[in-house]
């Protein structure tokens, strides 16, 4: 009995001790990162082809490879921290991760709590429908007539919520999902009529699932994609931006887009 009590107390004490050994960074974040030789990057590895898990269980995707190269140029290695998408902003805010790359678009709302790097890729939106879709989407606002699915916390979510606020789309017809692939599955089995997402992943999902097609493509909510950086980390932002410019001029980014997006 006594021994049992002892071990339980030990586990509890140890857990609290280990918890305390987290350590907080001070001073310039860039310096701290370079000193540690590691940059903690948050991502939500469930969004092919930007970031996902490949057959061997490794992280793969456009954002993944791009970030690894950026880090190399900065002289550090990447420590990937995977998280559900809608936890990432909070993660950067609270200092759980240094930065985040996860097909983010700039929004004013996000800008209030975090900063952004320069754009590293220009994105578009796409609306996908099932093959037997009988309606028509000539303009983005046309989706308001249907049941629409979207990933929670994305710019597409924001745009669609805007439609709801304006009274164009019924609240009950907007379905939010934790992940894009969930929405795509519901689209395929008819629970929703339309799905809105970044065009590159949307096309990838449609191709892989089959039975879906792109009804409309264009810049609606998406646009330039940026890396999310903590508020006020100007040195870090500058360093990253410099590398992005470099990679762009070298054609690295274009080649990467070709590899992952086929365009």
């Amino acid at each position, binding site marked *: *009995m006594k021994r049992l*009590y002892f*071990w*339980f*107390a030990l*586990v*509890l004490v140890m*857990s609290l001790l*280990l*918890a*305390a050994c*987290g*350590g*907080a960074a001070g001073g310039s974040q860039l310096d701290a990162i370079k000193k540690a030789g590691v940059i903690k990057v*948050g991502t939500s*590895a*469930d*969004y*092919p082809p930007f970031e*996902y*898990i*490949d*057959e*061997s*269980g490794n992280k793969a995707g456009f954002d993944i490879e791009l970030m690894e190269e950026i880090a190399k140029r900065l002289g550090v290695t990447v420590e990937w*921290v*995977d*998280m*559900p998408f809608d*936890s990432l902003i*909070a*993660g950067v805010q*609270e*200092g*759980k991760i240094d930065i985040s790359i996860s097909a983010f678009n700039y929004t004013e709302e996000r800008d209030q709590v975090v900063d952004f790097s320069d754009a590293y890729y220009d994105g578009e939106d796409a609306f996908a429908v099932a093959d037997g879709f009988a309606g028509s989407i000539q303009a983005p606002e046309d989706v308001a007539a249907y049941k629409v699915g979207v990933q929670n916390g994305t710019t597409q979510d924001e745009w669609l919520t805007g439609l709801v606020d304006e009274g164009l789309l019924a609240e009950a017809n907007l379905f939010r999902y*934790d*992940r*894009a*692939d*969930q929405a*795509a*599955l519901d689209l395929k089995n008819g629970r929703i009529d339309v799905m809105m997402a970044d065009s590159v992943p949307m096309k990838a*999902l449609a191709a*892989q*699932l089959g039975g879906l097609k792109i009804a409309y493509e264009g810049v609606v909510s998406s646009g330039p994609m940026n890396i999310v950086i903590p508020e006020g980390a100007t040195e870090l932002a500058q360093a990253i931006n410099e590398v992005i410019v470099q990679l762009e001029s070298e054609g690295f980014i274009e080649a990467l887009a070709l590899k992952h997006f086929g365009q």
Partner: protein
Amino acid sequence: MFGNFFSYILQGVSITIAVTLVALPAGLVLGLGLALLNTYGGPWLKRLSAGYSLLMRGVPPVVLLFILYFILSGNVVNLTPFWAGSISLGIISSAYQMEILRGALLSISGGQMTAARAIGMSRIQAIRYIILPQALRIAIPPWSNEASIVLKDSSLVYALGVPEILRRAQQLSATNQQPLLAFGAAALIYFVLVFLVNRGLDALAEKTKLPTQAA
């Protein structure tokens, strides 16, 4: 390909087990302490422990996880997702374990305490040598239930990004569009883990059972 997928999800097992091995014992130590305070303490201790139980059983575990990780952590203590998650689950579980153990303690007849005091035991000695050994035996079946719950709830740490079974299943589902396969595999693994835990505790209950037939 299927084998690779399965092994990717399987790698989450050690993390799931680790989360459970932090949360469950932490919940037991805390829950037992609270149960003793509530059963044997004065009116203020009773109120405080009852209030704690009410609060922690009324909060959805995920909410506590977020509070601990995003709000408290960094400002008060710096916790990794694993520890924030495990400790939160331990705190929640401690409230339920307190109720289980409290019920077990109360089910031991007052006569046991009386007889223990009658041979000169202090209250603490009586609790330690007479009441607790009997109460813990009684608590095994409902505790086994709680153990299963904590093990399954360990999946909640996915919200903090801990790469346990569920998060891995999500990622695979996103990659290969085969949710049935991914989540089916996850469900199977959880089932096996819970099954093993229950069997183990059943065996423990059997082993510690008090004989009633003449040998």
